[in-house]
């Protein structure tokens, strides 16, 4: 009997890639997509897998592999698709040689993202087909279907997942890997050299392909009409399908596996057979608008929001079914925070003391925006800290940014920050850039990058030196400092922000959660010396709590012993002791 294993959606996607005979996989980490690559690398004997510096590069690596004749993929979170959209829009014209799949992980509900965009909108604009699985088993199966469709229709294919699917586990029946023979490579400029004359022809080919696919979609197995009670019929895909089945197990459902292009005839037939047609799609009304444009009467966003994550209860309420609920207790919120021992807290405590504003970026250090630190003023997208600070300077002059810095992590700097820094140098900016180098991609759970010296497959390689990279741009003032040396850091920040030139401060200290990273001591309060001033609490370390008498306690299991609280106590009322 075939083995059944409980798998995370992302793990199942990786398994699907393995079984489909994928040979190359490239990605940049991003919640909720990261575990795809972390699982693909388990098959490194037969799949080459890498962390690329950003999603554009990852997509291009996969494209190159496909052109050479093997099945290849890239994976990324939804906002990563924006970064990769340049190659995506054009390879949609070129098509493939070996099957090519881009896995995009959307984040309805914004569990860990800066926006709630819907990848299906990009896919429609780029004219790329989209598959949408609705559980772990389908996540695996649809990967295989995606590669088949990619090769059959000569197109890249997007497999769209969402946080709920990617981070849910369910049983998956495992199959063997199918070794796909490499396709021969033949030079074909009309297909792969996208200059105007060639691209004109390919645009026609793309339109024709999508039309053909839409027709064929009516008989594809992954688009399935489940006829039951026809008083009410739903059209749904992805995780939303599960909510429909949960709430209305006896209703008719048209389950879409291919959500772009749509199977028009199949939808028209389904619509004609049900009395009330409801479109239940998370985020944007992508198929609702198309279906309505065909003159089909249906309800969708009149009943459901375009914001946030859907649920069975949301559907129950829309159908005016009884939902049993007890009011939630009113309790203090528990937002995410920097961990005890996090080097970012140390850096922010200094910036806060100096009254400095930070143009921020994407990573754990975005949490410097929230109390009690309140240092980060802006967060837009990967790499934007440096370029937006430059824009402020060009708008308001160099004195305006004397109390500003850009803060960016090491991984984000390698992603797209480096371009922004080049721009600052080239266009005679004077900004101060702080690269918070914790030797990893932290927020997504510790992935390596070009400056860590290790690859996804575990190979030890020469680490690109961020210091020398900055120096090579001609920046004179590049300073490295220990993130926990608050006194020295304060002096450097004062000095560099005062300068009328670009400077880079690289604060170095590994993420405290990195394996093998540990401080030798732990912090212990000395109540008899405590003046109850609360200075130690200011950096906002969660291991510290204020006692009723005004002294403090330090939670032994949480404290990592970084000593930041101690450095803020003028009365020696916190000691460090060996663990």
């Amino acid at each position, binding site marked *: 009997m075939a083995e059944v294993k409980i798998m995370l959606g992302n793990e199942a996607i990786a398994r699907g890639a393995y079984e489909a005979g994928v040979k190359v996989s490239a990605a940049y980490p991003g919640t909720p997509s990261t575990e795809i690559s972390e699982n693909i690398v388990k098959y490194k004997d037969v799949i080459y897998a890498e962390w690329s510096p950003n999603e554009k590069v990852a997509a291009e690596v996969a494209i190159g592999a496909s052109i050479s004749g093997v099945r290849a993929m890239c994976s990324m979170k939804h906002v990563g698709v924006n970064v990769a959209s340049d190659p995506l829009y054009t390879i949609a014209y070129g098509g493939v040689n070996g099957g090519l799949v881009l896995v995009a992980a959307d984040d309805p509900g914004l569990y860990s993202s800066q926006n709630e965009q819907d990848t299906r909108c990009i896919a429609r604009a780029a004219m790329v087909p989209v598959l949408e699985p609705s559980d772990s088993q389908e996540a695996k199966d649809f990967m295989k279907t995606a590669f088949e469709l990619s090769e059959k229709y000569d197109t890249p294919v997007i497999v769209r997942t969402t946080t709920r699917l990617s981070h849910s586990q369910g049983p998956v029946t495992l199959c063997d890997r199918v070794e796909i023979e490499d396709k021969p490579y033949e030079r074909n400029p009309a297909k792969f050299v996208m200059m105007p004359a060639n691209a004109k022809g390919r645009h026609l080919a793309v339109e024709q392909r999508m039309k053909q696919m839409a027709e064929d979609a009516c008989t594809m197995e992954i688009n399935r009409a489940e006829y039951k009670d026809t008083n009410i019929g739903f059209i749904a895909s992805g995780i939303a399908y*599960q909510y429909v089945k949960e709430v209305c197990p006896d209703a008719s459902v048209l389950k879409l596996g291919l959500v772009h292009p749509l199977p028009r005839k199949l939808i028209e037939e389904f619509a004609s057979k049900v009395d009330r047609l409801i479109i239940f799609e998370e985020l944007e009304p992508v198929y609702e608008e198309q279906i309505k444009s065909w003159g089909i009467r249906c309800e969708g966003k009149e009943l459901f929001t375009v914001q946030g994550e859907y649920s*069975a209860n949301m559907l129950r309420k829309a159908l005016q079914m009884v939902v049993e609920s007890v009011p939630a*207790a009113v309790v*203090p919120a528990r937002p*995410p925070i920097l961990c005890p021992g996090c080097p970012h807290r140390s850096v922010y405590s200094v910036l806060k003391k100096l009254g400095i504003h930070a143009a921020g970026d994407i990573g754990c250090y975005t949490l410097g925006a929230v*109390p009690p630190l309140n240092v980060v003023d802006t967060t837009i997208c990967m790499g934007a800290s440096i370029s937006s600070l430059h824009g402020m300077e060009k708008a308001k002059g160099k004195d305006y940014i004397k109390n500003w810095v850009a803060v960016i992590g090491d991984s984000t700097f390698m992603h797209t920050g480096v371009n922004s820094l080049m721009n600052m140098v080239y266009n005679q900016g004077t900004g101060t850039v702080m690269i918070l180098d914790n030797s990893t991609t932290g927020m997504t759970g510790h992935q390596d990058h070009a400056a860590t010296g290790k690859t996804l497959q575990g190979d030890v390689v020469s680490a690109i030196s961020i210091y020398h990279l900055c120096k090579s741009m001609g920046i004179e003032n590049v300073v490295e400092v220990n993130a926990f040396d608050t006194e020295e850091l304060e002096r450097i920040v004062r000095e560099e922000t005062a300068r009328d030139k670009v400077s880079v401060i690289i604060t170095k200290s590994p993420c405290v959660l990195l394996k093998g990273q540990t401080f030798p001591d732990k912090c212990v309060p000395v109540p008899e010396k405590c003046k109850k001033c609360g200075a130690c609490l200011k950096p906002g370390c969660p291991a510290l709590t*204020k006692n009723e008498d005004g002294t403090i306690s330090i939670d032994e299991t949480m404290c990592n012993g970084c000593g930041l609280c101690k450095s803020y106590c003028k009365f020696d009322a916190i000691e460090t002791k060996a663990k």
Partner: protein
Amino acid sequence: MTKNIMIVGVGGQGTLLTSRILGGIMVDAGYDVKLSEVHGMAQRGGSVVTFVRYGEKVYEPIVEEGQADVLIAFERLEAYRYAHFLKKGGAIVVNDQRIDPITVVTGAAEYPEHIIEILEKDHNVYRVDAQAMAKEMGNSKVFNIIVLGLAAQHMDFDKEEWLRVIEKTVPQKTIEINKKAFLAGYAMK
């Protein structure tokens, strides 16, 4: 009949490991299972919740308000936050630990008093100071498995099955201590 379990706590407390053990035992018993977890930003000290559903056929991966049979809470305030997810007569298994959220640390909010007593009014509450027990065993990290052991009393699996899945799921070096922790919770009155 689908059974719904929730594991709640503070990011970093080990909810993911516990949910893996739960998922493992249910699949081995031949149930359809769905688990839903939180990764990413919330794992940085935020409030985290894992949903576990098992039965003959499970569609929705999340547990909604008023549906949970068992609420496993690794921290008091988190038990309180999610108590309204319990169905009538559901059980709360709570690790009697207090971790102040940043809103409390900064003085913007107060940590509620008498949480357990309030919860006991409407629910069957089983409390354990798993931190202290784990420390006594010599590994404070296994507190979550003690809590799981206590919660296992409210689920339909044999002790031996639990131990077998723990053995399969936890890192090799920690099998013995995790088994010991589970049994300590399982034996609690």
